[in-house]
């Protein structure tokens, strides 16, 4: 049960967050088929550090980009994603 520093809500228990997808599986809008298919159906899936998209589903609801070690679970950083926002 990680503690995840939400840039909007502060430190919160992992149970409030949902992992959505790895950053390398984001299909950009209007991606060419080959790009979309590659993004959607293959993963680096590293036994190491990767960037991932999470959502603070049971908190502020915002999307977050998290860089994290998948063996130790250590979080290197968390960055907010989304529209421009006031502090």
């Amino acid at each position, binding site marked *: 049960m990680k503690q995840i520093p939400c840039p909007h809500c502060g430190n919160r228990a*992992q149970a409030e967050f949902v992992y959505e997808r790895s950053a390398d599986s984001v299909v950009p809008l209007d991606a060419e088929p080959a790009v979309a298919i590659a993004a959607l159906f293959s993963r680096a899936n590293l036994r190491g550090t990767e960037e991932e998209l999470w959502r603070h589903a049971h908190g502020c609801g915002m999307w977050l980009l998290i860089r994290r070690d998948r063996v130790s679970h250590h979080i290197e950083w968390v960055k907010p994603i989304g529209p421009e926002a006031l502090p």
Partner: protein
Amino acid sequence: MNAPLINFTFDGRALTAKPGQTLAAALLDQGIRLVGRSFKYHRPRGILSAGIEEPNALVTVGSGGREEPNTRATDLYVYEGLNARSQNRWPSLSSDVGGVLSLVSKALPAGFYYKTFFGPPKLWLFYEQFIRRAAGLGPAPTKADPDHYAQRAAFCDVLVVGSGPAGLIAARDAVRAGKKVFLVEQDAELAPSLLRDPAEIEGKPGRTWAGEIATAVRTSGGRVLTRTSASGLWDDQFVCLSEKLIEPGQIPANGFSQRYWHVRAGEVVLATGAIERPLTFANNDLPGVMLSQAVRTYVTRFGVLPGKRVVVATTNDDGYLTARALMAAGAEVVVLDSRPAPAGHSSGVEVHNLAAPVMARGGKRGVKALVATVDGAERSFACDLVAMSGGFTPVVHLHMQAGGKLDWDQAAQAFVPGETRQNVRTVGLAAEPQPAETVGAAGNPKAAFVDFQNDVTVSDLDLAWREGYRSVEHLKRYTTLGMATDQGKTGNMAALDRIARREGITIPEAGLTTFRPPFTPVSMGALAGLATGEHAQPTRHPALYDLHAARNPIWLNAGYWKRPRAYPQGAETLAQAGLREARTVRTAVGMCDVSTLAKFEVQGPDAVQFLERVCQTTVGKLALGRGRYTFMAREDGLVFDDGTVWRLGDQRYLLTSSTGGASRMATWLSYVRGHLCADLKVSVTCVQEHYAAIAVAGPKSAQVMAALTRSEAPRHMSVVESTIAGAPVLLMAASFSGERAFEVHFDASQAEAVWQAIEAEVLATGGTLYGIEAMELLRIEKGHLVVGPDIDGRLTAEELGLGRMVNKAGGWIGQSCLSRPDFADKQRKQLIGLEAIDGKAIPEGSMLVRFVGAEAEGHVTASGLRVLEGGSIALAHLKGGQARHGEEIYAHSPTRRQTVKVRVTSPHFYDPAGERYRD
């Protein structure tokens, strides 16, 4: 002053205990030594330890829903009325038939079951019944638990696990540094080691000193919890504690029997101490062979003398403390020390050096003598108690759970905590155990037990090693070593020692198995908290719930929601009520709660751009006040949801989608908005619960709406703002039934007024309430799809028959993945209709086959009937189905023994031209 004695029973025998005694202490006090039977051979067993590591003395306590099997007598404080029963014996503890297994044990070595019971699986199933009945420990519970278990969060700067002197010092230092401290002790008393070995600390009696620190912890905002076990340590110092508010089987005063804590700590200090190791010799499992510190605990803390003639067998200095305590209590003591005599040392007790036990003699009534080698020669010592100490195993479980490594302490012959990546440190005897020697196993290896509860002997280890199960994990799994309820807390080191000797390596080279949570077993009830029984998962009540409830519907659990399925009249069955309701909708009018639909307000200058990404249909062409059917594709191009989109204002849209997919849709919209389209000027607000919604459907629905709103009802697929019963409503002319119909959406706080107004008008017009059952009949006949059975996430819009509605301009998400080659295959499944040729009901879910015996080419997704005319119809997925209209095939359900001949048709059975939508 003598406190009153506590009455309890053991196997029906009325007994008494002194206050503060554990069941084990009380039984020993009463001279009861035989407490249980072992798992495999049903050997008679007594009490080995005085703590949570106990492998032998397991009992069942409590009654009814509070019956708790496998409770350790050493970890159970006697309470008035305690009713404890021994386990795994029949007919009684002293004459257990299962004991015959002891006699054939020679043919039942470790892993014997892998080598026999061959034959067909049914034969194993037959043998297995007997094995299952013989195995298991306590009785299987049968009743629901009447008690509550709380689950509670806590946050602290420092969590100290263990309240021995080292833990108390850590707690005191943290308090002095201004920290919020949690101090956790599994025993009922703080600093239990000071009850066993009273001492003066910092010039005060140890107990006083301990009490002062506890008070300091409390007054500085921290907490002190006794009877609390730290069972698991997870990422980022997240620690689960299980606190016994009352003893197992006891009736709680406030309804709560345990509290399970989820603690996030800044730092965790493990002052978890060490567990004494037994010595490995023949018959070391006899009642009356006990751990040395445990004996001392019984003597000093509980005032019980477990034996009068005692042999203390030790590999370390701690055994001498036991010898002294025993002598002070009046016992006759001999010490067997495995080590050579130290120079000039006098302990005032008969000591034999270079002495190690070989075999105990005795029976179910207990040990009678201990045979030992003393300086190479065998000698027998008559005794009624053996107190043994093979050194100490630090409790490193939580350290290891935290991802910590282990180091080897040669002097103590023990693994000690090494580096860890979490903010966790270990102090006291868990970090620096007392020096001790390792003595190998002695005596007949077949009777020398390493894992007491699971009956693993030295010869079992030898056999496993000989057969190639040499990794510790193989050894553990093959022999079941350390897999009993005590998780090998006492026996693992002896096993490692044996294996290292066989392999010719050191113990650290042999390694250790991984410790996983929990440290001590945790009640399932505590893990579930209050979320049990009918509250295991929340039930969602729609805004109109109470109004339905007053009308006594048949309820449907639809996911989390509770929805009316039909409103039967008189003795109507569900099917009868559903059909009546559907027919009334077809001929007059009906009303139905559709509040649970997912609803989103999409607003802003870029709302259309956003919606045309998400919806596969066009949105931009929608005129103000108009709406249309829409559907959405996943990124892989397959349709996953459908609904409607309405233009409420210039830049304001309402998007509805399926109830079951509501949270998935909310997440999806949030992803598209928040990540893919972060630069758009748009807001997407979930209004699923804000709007309650009532569908009014039927040829008379326009008349009903006109009467309610005192204005002409909007035409099909138009939306107007209006008022019903004084409440503002959105009136959307949309149909899911094939009839002219409306959805009335309104602020859920107006639920009662709006419902009652509509209900009065509907009933006055000869209409009815209808539920999901009728809704299904109506929509199937019309060929409307639902998410789940029809839109199952495996078909494209084209295959669902929605192709001509797809936005040809593209731009919707999922488009690029539809270019994958196999989607061009016209033999993929497609949505079609079916009608039964002989009128029989078409079994929902049945397989579509060309003939019985052929392979399935599709299946029935929804089955219904022609509401007014009768005749069975269905929706289905069929390979290449859109080109097979007119073909006759079979809907085949072997599980229901039904086979119905059906004709493939269009899925639109009712008013395909949509003429009924016009007034």
